[in-house]
């Protein structure tokens, strides 16, 4: 069952690991019926020049709208890849789409975003018996995803929003989102999608809260910077709690030892991006001064992934494909544990397509170290009630 002999029926997938942008685009788009597509999602590896890819897409796509972003890794039909351009073409027969670009999101004007989104969603015609959802792709270094997604969630109240933050292959320098053939930094793209497919949201992580509380005693919430925890310099205290030397702190350590925020029965991962020179810690999700966190202990990542992707619709069918936004820190941990091959096989078998993010959005919440996705199922003949 894990190895499905067929590809998905309701999305066309093209990939290329050609180092040249034009070649890659041409190769990837070769198998796609661009003319019959409603829109195309492009996930660009760090290795390719964004502007070159954009220019190539403009030529190749012949007016079919292209959305996407730069990434910290791709999930193609082969599983995890680092240098492959991934194109996903959504057929017109099954999808309708509208888009809006939010520019200069840093700092974010919530009221402006809200009013623009409001107008935008009102214009989007509703087709009877089609399902609606929204995809959000945001600059992964903007640090505005929290506010952005919660604003959109409150405006698009009856519309589930799934999103991923763009990456730049762990360089943390500049990330881009693609909107109608152009690359934007400090921006976010919102896609409103209607489909006659059934879909289910997916979201899981693999951490459990452990240990004593950690209190943020000094921070800059806007920059997601934490200077002190438990009254000590943040990096030093974190190293003490994790049990390693400050000098040994690395993305891998951060990936394995995230902090969790508990809220009622649920917990939310606050991933650490980096340790600065002043022993501050920068985070990939919203934090606050005075916040109480705990360390997270990872569970079996392969198992949680398999379980999380084991979805069925009401009739018991498996998804046709899953659009996935997978945190790059998860991938780091997987690589660290040398599980890349196994995980890739699972992703392949479950027909997961997508990219490695700097953050994931679901239900109005921006998180880290999670897997967020949308599983699409073959539409069932809906008998009249």
């Amino acid at each position, binding site marked *: 069952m894990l190895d499905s002999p067929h590809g998905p029926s309701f999305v066309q997938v093209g990939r290329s690991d050609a180092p040249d942008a034009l070649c890659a685009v041409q190769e990837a788009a070769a198998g796609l019926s661009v003319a019959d597509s409603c829109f195309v999602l492009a996930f660009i590896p760090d290795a390719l020049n964004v502007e070159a890819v954009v220019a190539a897409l403009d030529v190749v796509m012949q007016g079919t709208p292209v959305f996407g972003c730069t990434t910290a890794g791709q999930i193609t039909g082969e599983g995890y890849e680092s240098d492959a351009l991934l194109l996903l073409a959504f057929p017109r027969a099954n999808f309708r789409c509208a888009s809006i670009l939010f520019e200069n999101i840093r700092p*974010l004007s*919530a009221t402006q975003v809200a009013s623009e989104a409001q107008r935008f969603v009102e214009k989007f015609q509703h087709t009877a018996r089609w399902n609606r959802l929204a995809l959000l792709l945001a600059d992964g270094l903007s*640090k*505005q995803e*929290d*506010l952005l*997604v*919660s*604003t959109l*969630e409150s405006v698009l109240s009856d519309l589930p929003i799934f999103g991923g933050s763009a990456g730049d292959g762990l360089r943390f320098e500049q990330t881009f989102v693609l909107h109608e053939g152009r690359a934007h930094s400090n921006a976010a793209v919102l896609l409103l999608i209607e489909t006659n497919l059934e879909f289910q949201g997916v979201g899981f992580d693999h951490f459990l809260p452990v*240990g*004593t*509380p*950690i*209190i*943020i*005693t*000094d921070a800059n*919430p*806007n920059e*997601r910077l934490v200077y*002190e925890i*438990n*009254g*000590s310099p943040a990096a030093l*205290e974190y190293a*003490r*709690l994790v049990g390693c030397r400050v000098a040994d702190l690395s993305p891998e350590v951060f990936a394995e030892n995230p902090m969790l925020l508990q*809220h*009622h*029965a*649920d917990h*939310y991962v606050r991933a650490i991006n980096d340790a600065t020179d002043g022993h501050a810690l920068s985070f990939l*999700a*919203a*934090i*606050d*001064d*005075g*916040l*109480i966190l705990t360390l997270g202990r990872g569970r079996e990542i392969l198992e949680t992934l398999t379980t999380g992707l084991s979805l069925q619709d009401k009739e018991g069918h498996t998804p046709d494909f899953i659009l996935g936004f997978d945190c790059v820190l998860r991938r780091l941990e997987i690589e660290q544990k040398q599980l890349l091959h196994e995980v890739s096989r699972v992703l392949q078998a479950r027909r997961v397509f997508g990219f490695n993010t700097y953050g994931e959005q679901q*239900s*109005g*919440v*921006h998180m880290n170290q999670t897997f967020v996705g949308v599983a699409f199922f073959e539409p069932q003949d809906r008998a009249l009630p």
Partner: protein
Amino acid sequence: MSLVDPNDAPEVQIAKQAKIIDALMRRANRQKDVGPSAFRAFQSAIELQQQVAAQIRDLARAETELESARYERERTRRNLIEALSSMEEGFALFTSGQLDLCNDLFSGLAPDIASEIVPGLPIRQFFDLVSDSVHLVSSDRGLDDVAAALQEYPEDSTTASIVLELSADRWYQMSAQRTSRENVVLLLTEITAIVRQNRVEKETLIDRQADYLQAVFQNMRSGVCTFSETGTVLMNNARFREILDLPAAILAPGQSIRDLLKYLRDHKMVRREDLAKVDVWRRELTSRGWLRKRVGHGVDRVVEIHANRMPDAGFLVELKDLTLEARTKETLENRVMERTAELTRANAELVREYQEKAVVEEALLQAKERAEAAVSSKTRFLAAASHDLLQPINAAKLLISTLQGLTRDTELSHLVDRLNGAFGSAEQLLHSLLDISRLESAEPDTVTPTGLCLAALMEGIYADQSLVAEQKNVRLDVVPSSAFVRSDPIYLLRSVQNLVVNAIQYTEPGGRVLVGCRRKAGHIVLEVWDTGIGIAHKDQDRIFEEFTRADNVPAGSGMGLGLSVVDRACRLLGHTLSVRSKPGVGTVFRIQMERVEGEREEAEPAGLMKLSEDTALEHIVLVIENDRDALYAITQLLEQWGASVLPAHSREEAATFVRDMGIPPDIILADYQLDDGDTGVEVVSHIRAVTGAHVPAILITADRGEPVRRDALQNDVSVLTKPVKLSRLRPMIMWKIRRFQTGEDAPLAIPTKVGDDSKDAEHKVRVPGGHA
């Protein structure tokens, strides 16, 4: 793991903790802030997310429940329809006034409307259809009413029931019940079989009842005839005709009562005055509903007519032939009257006799009262006289006593002694008289029974009577008993004394008198034996009467009051007195008394002994007294009384006397407090030990304390306190010595054979108050 690195210096830890607190406080304060903040946005988003998740869960659950409920409902409905089809009754459910479901039996009630009974049919219309059906013959109430009632009173859940008769003699009962505000259930039960069966049973019953009635009619003792409203004969029995002596034709059904009356008149069977009242009777019957008359019939017959109105406005006439009854009654009444007259006379006689008797009774009562008063005054007089007479006799005795002293050894001496004896008898007689008068007075407190010890009493008797016996040369033996009895001390003493005095008196010199006790099942029997002249059987009843003596009693033996006193006292005290005697052999008197539990007290003979002054104390008396003057004085006194005295100052002196003498003294008198801490009791014990004899001893001491007394009594030493009364000392010495010599514990034995044990000699004299 603690919040703060425990390896830090304490002040550093404190500083960190302060920072932590500060941060928490800052955050807590910021909770109220509004305005955009990434974290606040995140926080509100996750709260919302969790709420939504919860709602989705609820929704999913509700949907599942709804689904299963829907399935259940479908199934129930299917089951219901199946169940209805198999029912033997027609069933229909109307929901909100419209037919929801029904079974075939229901819809097939009337074939012409069956096709119209389909779901959706309004209930009102259903009833209209039924009432318009050609098959409906009748119903016991309007179908419209039922329909209206069901609609009008939707709250009323009671059942409305209606019986429908359909063509071909088919019957149905239709029950309508409102099971809820919306639902009405109609049940259709076929009752054809029941209706038909009822009908058959009813017809049979009516026939049977008619037969039964006819039979009852014919067998009645009275004559009965029923008439219709218009007065024609309906039914009658043979007895009716028999009483009236009528031909059957006159009373054939359909005949008029007028013909009957006419027949009666023509045959002069009814008195004219009775016939004249017929109209009056009829009105009476009509207005009151019943009528009862007694009429003469024919020449000498009496008939009672009893008429009652019947429910159908006809009437029933019942006749009873009372001729015989009337005659019997007359005879009876005559007899009753005669008997009553007799009784009245007898009663008057009785009343008169009773009155006479009452007069006699009254007279008797007065006589009795007079007699009682006389007796009472006589008794009082006797008591007063006896008492008053005793005073001068006492005085005379004292004078005689003096005279005896003066005339001792003169020729007058004999005379004085005779005089003394005569006064003694007179005194005795007076005492007896006084006793009898007291016992006769029947006052409740004459005797006061208490628990008392016989020992003291018997010792007293001995002390009193031993001298008399001695003087008469009669041997008197008293065997004291320590038993306790319930009796009056004065009268018991007097009784025993009298018996002993009598015994001595009637015993010839050289004879014996013995006093002793026996135990007998909860009782004590005190017995006085003598070897006297005895009492003849014929006298044994009489001897207890006053002033009576047996024939063989020598003259001058007194007035014979003694036994009378004994008898009266015993009766009052509830003792049984009996006598057994044989002339020439002897007599025994017995007093049987109730025994009680008691503790024997050391009985002293003090005051009970009356010894004449001149009886010499011819005994050896050992006196131990450390005070020389006291020793001299008591030695002088004792020697004057005639005793040989061994005066000792101490234990050693006393022991020396005894040793020198070689025999034990007859009695020891000892002071308690001796020299060198010695005590009298110890010396007594010592002397007893030395002599090997239990010498009687009296302790004379000024110490009235209980320890001394107890010490003495434990060693069998009597106690007298100083100053010693000589009147007590002398009798006590006498008593102690005598007791020692006769032996205190001498067994009760019959010393002499007195009489025989033949039954006729035993004679119970009186049985007091119900005791056997």
